């Protein structure tokens, strides 16, 4: 279904949903940093900046409780967190590079173990994508086969138009329902042209060729070369829309506490540190190799997809300028 919505009606839509008790998550400023966070009103929303963290946290939060325990004398009470309590959510203003990562994550979170924390939020969330009008030279969505107007992952997709307002197109029942339930706010599509979209200028990677090289080069001098400068933080993984590793920790006292699920990163030395003291990935080159292998080989082997949407966040935040687009480009030329 194709429709048009003007800015005023869009704001009304978001404000109405919030009034109805729907959690609306959209890009907003938090202490000077753009993030996808619940908004209290449409006036908080910003659409001109790529949030510093991806939209994955709408389904896979930085930290969440998964269980609580209490001990009184010999009696131990363990209480599960009930995913049914998760709120109905509208995830709004999602860039194509972020929206495209969500179906990629569906594959792993509904694979051998069904992660109800992720999946229940996913069921209850409608995703409204927004075509991208600003790219910088860290962006490379086009290099991994996506584009600034890619609708992958979006239930409803908005394209900003010259003269204001948005062209809307639905791609799922959830998208159709959003329009149908608020039909007075949407009008028939008009002939306005789209605003000029972003132009990430990186050439398209030959991902098959990259994978074929990775298949044969677990050991290669390339890894030492790119990772000698890696300082072993988790910034790249944490801002990534597709990285999904997590750690489980128990925190509390003898009497009461919580089991929590926190983001984890393969760049940390502790990530593969065994209880025995042995660490099979005993240096940053081995850890960085895993990052590239997981994104462009292992995930493809298992799920037939690439674990990178070219958002460029890791390139922008790396403390030491490690540039995944440059590395994959180098591999594709080998």
């Amino acid at each position, binding site marked *: 279904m194709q429709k048009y919505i003007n800015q005023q009606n869009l704001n009304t839509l978001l404000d109405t949903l919030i009034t109805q008790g729907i959690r609306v998550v959209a890009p907003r400023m938090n202490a000077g*940093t753009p993030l996808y966070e619940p908004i209290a009103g449409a006036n908080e929303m910003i659409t001109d900046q790529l949030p510093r963290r991806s939209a994955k946290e709408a389904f896979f939060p930085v930290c969440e409780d998964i269980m609580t325990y209490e001990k009184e004398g010999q009696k131990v009470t363990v209480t599960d967190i009930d995913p049914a309590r998760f709120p109905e959510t509208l995830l709004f203003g999602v860039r194509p590079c972020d929206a495209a990562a969500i179906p990629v994550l569906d594959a792993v979170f509904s694979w051998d173990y069904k992660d109800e924390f992720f999946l229940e939020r996913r069921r209850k969330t409608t995703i409204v994508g927004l075509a991208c009008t600003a790219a910088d030279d860290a962006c490379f969505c086009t290099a991994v086969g996506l584009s600034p107007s890619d609708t992958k992952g979006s239930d409803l997709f908005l394209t900003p138009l010259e003269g204001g307002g948005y062209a809307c197109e639905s791609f799922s029942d959830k998208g159709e329902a959003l329009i149908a339930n608020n039909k007075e706010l949407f009008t028939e599509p008009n002939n306005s042209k789209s605003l000029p979209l972003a132009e990430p200028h990186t050439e398209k990677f030959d991902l098959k060729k990259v994978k074929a090289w990775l298949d044969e080069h677990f050991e290669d001098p390339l890894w030492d070369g790119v990772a000698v400068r890696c300082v*072993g933080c988790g910034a790249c993984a944490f801002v990534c829309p597709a990285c999904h590793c997590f750690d489980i920790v128990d925190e509390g006292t003898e009497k009461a506490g919580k089991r929590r699920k926190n983001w984890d990163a393969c760049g940390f030395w502790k990530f593969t540190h065994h209880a025995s003291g042995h660490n099979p990935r005993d240096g940053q080159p081995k850890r960085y190799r895993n990052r590239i292998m997981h994104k462009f080989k292992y995930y493809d082997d298992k799920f037939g997809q690439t674990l990178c949407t070219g958002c460029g966040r890791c390139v922008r935040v790396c403390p030491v300028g490690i540039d995944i687009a440059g590395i994959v480009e180098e591999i594709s030329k080998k």
Partner: protein
Amino acid sequence: MTPIDTSIYAAITDAIQTEAGRILSEGQVTAVVGYAAARRKGSAQPIVISNPDDAQKLIFTAACVNNLAVYLTKAKKEIPKTGKIGIVVKGCDLKALSGLMGESQLKREDLYLIGVPCAGVLGSTVQPATELTTGTIAAKCTECDAHLPTGCDFVPNQTPITPELEQKYAVEIARLEALTPAERWAYWQEQFSKCIKCYACRQVCPFCFCEQCLCDRNKPQMVETTPRPAGNTAWHIVRAMHLAGRCAGCAECERVCPMDIPLNLLNRKMAKELKELYDHEASFEVLDKGPLTMFTDKDDQSFIK
């Protein structure tokens, strides 16, 4: 925003290339740690070279923000610490090296220091192709007293032009000090709420060289590792306190924070306290003992009541 003159950086680049090529080919050093251009326009990244032919890759520009001293610490095992190593240092980086020498982490005779006369570097390299101006310069550079490193083995013969700038940290610390404790707490709680525990601040810090950080321990857990308010606040307090009297002010923690938390404000506040209490500040001087690791009878004892 007024442009800052960085025209000397081209000549400095030439001088670094020549010197690095010379010391490598003469066998004076086994490797040189410096900066090289990267793929994105105007960007620079750390590089370790051991072949004299690679010396031509070395550059110095306003995007050469990293404090390379971190690569010489024992926390960075990827850089072989055999033989003498050359390193390109700005004044702020040299203060960190001096601190590491004072803490017996490095020996001066194992280093060949290539000092850089520095007019300043960019505050953020999110968009590296940015002109250096009074608006884009790193906050640390507005308070710099170390534009010309001394005591190095080689310093290019250039003099940076360094205009007086509004001291960004001093202004911000004064603003925070004027708040009530409740307001200040609210300010930091809002900032720390963004923390995702990526530990970039720790990993780039030359003084965070512990082989196992206390904050990574889980048996027993010393600090809540979870990225939520209590754990985040605990981590940033531990970090600031552990660096008090040691921090050289390179502000790498703040530069690399992907969540823009103004971490160096905590370090500068500590530095201010250290200056007032013990007349200590980070410098090029190598001190056997830091201000918090010794006692003198001149120390303020008014807190004993």
